[in-house]
């Protein structure tokens, strides 16, 4: 089952590089969750993992199996696509929830809700 040894050296080097950089990106993203001080700052950290990390690791997987099976492999692109399309939903939900709570608690450092524009011809 160990056919990874069939991988030619040039492909192995590129795959290793992509995997290592991708894994490092994901690690930095997780580290950000630990290090950054406020909730809103921490919102940014996982996006490194979802954009940089996922893309690089998926590219590595594409290249590795494309070379091994000597055919084009594209279905990892779907992973990249769906991860990028679905992260905003979670992040916006978390961000809005935090914003709502902070506004209810009347925190100073959070921007106020913009006043609705007076619309004279609305009625």
């Amino acid at each position: 089952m160990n056919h990874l040894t069939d991988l030619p050296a040039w492909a192995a080097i590129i795959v290793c590089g992509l995997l290592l950089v991708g894994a490092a990106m994901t690690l930095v993203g997780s580290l950000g969750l630990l290090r950054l001080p406020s909730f809103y700052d921490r919102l940014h950290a996982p996006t490194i993992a979802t954009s940089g990390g996922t893309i690089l690791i998926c590219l590595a997987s594409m290249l590795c199996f494309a070379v091994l099976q000597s055919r084009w492999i594209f279905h990892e692109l779907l992973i990249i696509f769906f991860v990028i399309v679905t992260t905003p939903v979670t992040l916006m939900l978390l961000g809005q929830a935090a914003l709502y709570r902070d506004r209810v608690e009347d925190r100073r450092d959070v921007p106020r809700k913009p006043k609705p524009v007076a619309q004279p011809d609305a009625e």
Partner: protein
Amino acid sequence: MRAWYPYPLFSIALFLMWLLLNQSMAPGAIVVGVFLSTLLAWVMVKLQPTQSRLRRLGLMAGFALAVAADIIRSNVAVAGIILRARRRPANTGFMTVDVDLENENALALLACILTATPGTAWLEYDRRQKSLLLHVLDIDNEDLWRRTVKRYEAGLKEILQ
């Protein structure tokens, strides 16, 4: 043709996705793919999504490349900020940008781009005031972010209508 395929682009995308998931061009997979993409396009009619026309495919490629370059650059920048966070705390903050986009699809795309770019988080869009509340990890470059969002807005306006 229009009656059978109310959303041609959506159907084509679904069909391609089915082939990719199956990883085959066998006749069976193609038949099931055509069937599924037709059926699911009809389901979409019930959901009534806003329809927009994609224009100028050449512009789209340039836009995608610019976005990819921005994402790579800010990945590196944010990684640096996180690694240096102990010694030099990041200067973060909120900012509002006026974004004049009516089209729902364009707004959704802008949200995806801004979220995929580390360092900017979309918090709230006010439809009446057309202003977008962002949280930025690197508020020192507020002008740069503002210009970036403006550039995306202009690009999306040209591509989607």
